[in-house]
């Protein structure tokens, strides 16, 4: 009984890192339910796919994932160069996504992921992703930035 109670009170994502890992696993596995489990069930969520429009609200965000997964995504991710800033209720992760298809590098994306503690779990509230130079998401030669 006690074990059952502990199980039931365990937050789905006890840390921002757990939510982030679930986000990318859901993405790799084309798992819409798991993806939507990561997102905060609130209207203020934001999602910007690389080169895409700014999606505001859970309905628009969910529809975009439906489209992506419906097309049969075959992407896998390597995350590198993480920068984390955490407060008790909010976490900001800046990550570089190396995107692989069938094991070969297809592109590099920079993502700003924001997670919020909602009382029972950390959830994603914002995902802003944009294309980065393929050689590296971080600056290599500052004079070439612009």
């Amino acid at each position: 009984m006690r074990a059952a109670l502990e199980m039931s009170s365990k937050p789905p994502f006890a840390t921002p890192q757990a939510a982030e890992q679930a986000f990318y696993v859901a993405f790799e596995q084309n798992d819409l339910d798991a993806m939507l489990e990561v997102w905060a069930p609130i209207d203020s969520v934001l999602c910007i796919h690389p080169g895409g429009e700014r999606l505001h609200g859970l309905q628009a965000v969910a529809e975009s994932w439906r489209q992506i997964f419906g097309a049969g995504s075959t992407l896998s991710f390597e995350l590198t160069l993480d920068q984390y800033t955490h407060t008790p209720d909010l976490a900001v992760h800046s990550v570089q996504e190396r995107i692989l298809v069938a094991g070969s590098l297809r592109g590099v994306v920079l993502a700003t992921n924001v997670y919020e503690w909602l009382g029972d779990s950390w959830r994603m509230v914002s995902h802003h992703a944009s294309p980065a130079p393929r050689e590296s998401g971080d600056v290599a030669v500052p004079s070439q930035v612009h």
Partner: protein
Amino acid sequence: MDREPVFASPDEVEAAYYDAFQRADIDAMMAVWSEADHIVCVHPVGGYRLCGWRQVLEGWINVFARELDVLIRLSDVTKTLNGSLAIHSGLENIVRSKQPEVRGQVVFTNIYERTEAGWKMMLHHASPGPRPDVIGAPAGFATDYDPNQFH
């Protein structure tokens, strides 16, 4: 040199940021940024990520070396304030003041943090807005993905 300004709110930082940007004022721009090592800046041109004070400074020196002469109007801004962090997101509508027919739209996420020296910018992520024919996820996003096609 003037004493560094102290910003009492995320909105004050944001106003100072876009004012410094439009005036191409490097001192005013860097007064906006937190001096912490974890600051991050992603400009929409090039798409590199700049981390830490020195890279962010060099990035702005490069931007301002281009004689930008831009006017920036924000739209669709949403704001979240939670303790010592604030997240603002929206669209930057950019015109060249001498070529008003040249227009661009940039999607931004600005994150501010409360420091001992007041509110400061901690992260600026800006990326090109969608092409007119792109709705939701870009075509081919899932199956034939090449982010570099957007450059």
